[in-house]
């Protein structure tokens, strides 16, 4: 095992559907995540970007044990997470926690904030009453909310406040790793920054490691040390944030970066109309980006490219036969 690696994902795969019907006909299957291999190092923020349907949320749910991979392994500190979560989610939940996309939906409307935040303290840490009180105060302070909010109900909070409560709940069990699944995309822009800044502060304060999942390139760029780009269930490019964003190798990453609107950017590069995701029930044999790719050749349609290191750039890899050159 690599020194300092907290989480190892080895050839993880998640197939939905499949199997056979009562009469033996095969049911259609969708590979939501396929052949994903990546390490998360202690103390870093790994950003995962991709568009809807690329499998990033499924990957996130597998890391925290809310979903089980149908193939491959996910090791946390060298222990097999999958096997463990199947038996008891609690051991895993003490190490790895999750922040949900929709802050309001992730809080039970009929429970006070105190009840919600106490749950992990009771069930995961088995704290006594006095210890819980102290911890609750600490948590509310960490996410910058007044302690008197503890006795209110979720509907009394704005989206930004609710998301901070979501973060506090994730923090409660003192985890080492937090998976953030689109934590700011449901929030108004002026509130996004509040939450992002708090997350940033907490990381240093509690020595956390983040896996940050988002469709928003600029947000991912601003928070991540390393970035993985997903397309159609696979990682197509991975590397240090700076090199991926400054000199993208995979044509998809290239397209993504050129499509993203930014203040002051006048024209967006856009493709022709007839270019969308392949049919998930009938995936192409080769590169999934083939149909949209300006650099495609025949070999792309017949063979699946694997992640290859980019020469001269430490840790940067792309799954493409014809990658863009460095700049």
């Amino acid at each position, binding site marked *: 095992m690599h020194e300092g690696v907290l989480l190892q994902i080895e050839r993880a795969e998640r197939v939905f559907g499949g199997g056979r019907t009562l009469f033996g006909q095969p049911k259609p299957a969708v590979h939501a995540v396929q052949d994903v291999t990546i390490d998360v190092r202690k103390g870093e923020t790994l950003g995962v970007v991709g568009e809807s349907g690329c499998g990033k949320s499924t990957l996130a749910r597998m890391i925290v044990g*809310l979903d089980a991979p149908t193939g491959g392994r996910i090791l946390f500190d060298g222990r097999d997470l999958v096997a463990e979560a199947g038996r008891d989610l609690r051991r895993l939940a003490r190490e790895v926690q*999750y922040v949900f996309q929709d802050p309001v939906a992730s809080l039970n409307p*009929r429970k006070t904030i105190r009840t919600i935040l106490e749950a992990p303290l009771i069930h995961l840490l088995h704290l006594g009453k006095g210890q819980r009180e102290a911890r609750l105060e600490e948590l509310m302070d960490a996410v910058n909310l007044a302690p008197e909010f503890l006795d209110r109900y979720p509907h009394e909070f704005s989206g930004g406040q609710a998301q901070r409560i979501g973060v506090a709940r994730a923090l409660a069990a003192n985890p080492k790793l937090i998976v953030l699944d689109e934590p700011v995309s449901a929030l*108004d822009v002026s509130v996004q920054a509040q939450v992002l800044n708090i997350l940033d502060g907490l990381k240093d304060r509690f020595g956390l490691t983040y896996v940050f999942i988002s469709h928003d*390139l600029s947000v991912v760029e*601003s928070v991540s040390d390393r970035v993985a780009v997903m397309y159609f269930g696979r990682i197509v490019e991975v590397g240090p944030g700076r090199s991926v964003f400054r000199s993208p190798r995979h044509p998809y990453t290239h397209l993504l970066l050129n499509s993203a609107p930014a203040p002051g950017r*006048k024209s967006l590069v*856009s493709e022709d*109309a007839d270019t*969308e995701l392949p049919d998930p029930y009938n995936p192409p044999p080769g590169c999934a980006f083939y149909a949209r790719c300006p650099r495609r050749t025949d070999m792309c349609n017949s063979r699946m490219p694997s992640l290859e290191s980019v020469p001269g750039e430490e840790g940067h890899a792309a799954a493409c036969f014809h990658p863009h050159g460095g700049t």
Partner: protein
Amino acid sequence: MAEAAAAPAKPAKTTSGRPDSLHLLLNNSLATAGLVIFALIVLAALAAPLLPLPDPDATAPANRLLRPLAEGHLLGTDALGRDILSRLIWGTRVSLAVGISATLIAAFFGSLIGLVAGYAGGRVDTLLMRGIDMVMAFPYILLALAIVAVLGPGLLNALYAIAVVNIPFFARNIRGIALGLSRREFVDAARLSGKSNTQILFVEVLPNVLPVIIITMSTTIGWMILETAGLSFLGLGAQPPQADLGSMLGDGRKILFTAPHVSIIPGTMIFALVMSINLLGDGVRDVLDPRLKSGALTRPVARTAVMRQIVPEDIRPDRNAVLDVRGLKTEFHFGGEVYKAVGGVDMAIGQGECLGIVGESGSGKSVSAMSIMGLVPTPPGRITGGVALLDGEDLFAATDERIRHLRGSAVSHVFQDPLSTLHPLFTVGDQLIEAIQAHQPLPKAQAREKAASLLKVVRIPNPAERLKSYPHELSGGMRQRVCIAMALANDAKIIIADEPTTALDVTVQAQVLSLLDALRKEHNAGILFITHDFGVVSAICDRVAVMYAGQFVETGTTDDILSSPAHPYTAKLIDCVPVLGQPERRLDAIGGRPPVVNRLPIGCAFAERCPRAQDDCRAAPIPVTELGEGRTVRCVHPLTGEAADA
């Protein structure tokens, strides 16, 4: 109209839910009447042993079939000379007890099955629900009859039969709700907090299902009383000498022609009882159903109500503008509160020009745009001031028919979520043809050709085939192209686009934006573009208006506003968003929250969150200052060029 719905959710809660609900229930006069009648009946039934009533089973053949108001027998006597009033009250007691017990039994078992099936999902769900489906495959009463037939007639057997046949009803209802709740994120969150499945089911899910169980019970209890009465009426429930309301009615039926009162009286009692329960049940449902609370079940009329208090006169219309809006005010009236969603907005759009309105949710940007053609739902929306001039014609003064004529022809719309904005049951072609034929008297074949050519314009491959598709068969990007094609159907002068790319992926967004940009140039149409994203603004808008709490705080060309914002809010809004290619930028969060639009301050609405705010900001309404050609700001301490750079 997410903004409108979001607004009333904000106000501070002063009371907890319970007294509030009871108060609401009593506000409903029908429900109150139901409650009073029901309470009286229940009281009489409970007090039956205490009341000075003759023995309900004492026969007196000499006094048989006395009419009502006979001496000593207020409601007369039946065929065996028994006192009807006494039998009525004792019978009501039995009917109530049976109805309520059956409801409780059905609710308990049905809800339990529904909860488990909905939460567990998978095989457990399939197995349980298949069983329930089997039971439901019988006509309801028939199954009860079969059960009674086998167990033998009797009140208790009738009770079991009615309870059993109602279990599926609860199970199905509760399962649907439990299934939805189990997929909610708070259930995952509870799991990650270390709770076990049983704990989650009964501590997290059940409290959220409880209102539905109560609603279902209140709607079924009347029904169960009816059904048990029915079985007794047929002679399969209560057996003599015991009597419930149904068996009294059944006895009376045999002498219907000679002594109708013997059957009419117990029937009236059943009716009164069930009616009062249903009135009450409706009231309970109205209080507990969130859809009714949020106004989701009020019908919006075809056009926003126009109730202008101020009609600006002697306006010098902007000669270059196709659409010229002055002083637009739109309000929402909800239960005595007035939400000033739009508080005086001016905007002008010229030929082929794109004006962007930028703001956060609740700022009133969508409402401003939807007000123009009267598409803000009424109730609760109403336009209370201003004019909207389309080529000089005041749209707020136009007739409904004139507005209908202009909608989709001179002014067309593109909305946010292309899945919900297209009708799911009509093909794309039908919907396009309808848009064309609404304004052009073309025969169907020609309209179809035109529809195909429109799809070609928005670069949809294979247009003739695509016309036959239903919206759900297309991808999000394709659907939005169809919506754009629809907006182009009648050569609109103005296209109002309300966050048209927000629901789309980045790469698809880029496609749609460049398409819109190209089309407005080709067709020379003006666009009013609503968005929250300055990046999107840069890509398409010539000019921008920044909106906050129902007013434009700053307007100007896109370049000017991005390079040197004058209003502190604009500056903050630009600085709080990460920008691609500048990962080291410090994000400057805006503290606090926007004001609620039913309690706006007198002065600047942003003052509470503004670092530059001084006393004069809060003292009086802030006037608009002209900074230059087409550049305005609503601020008394605007940023100068240097301050913005610093």
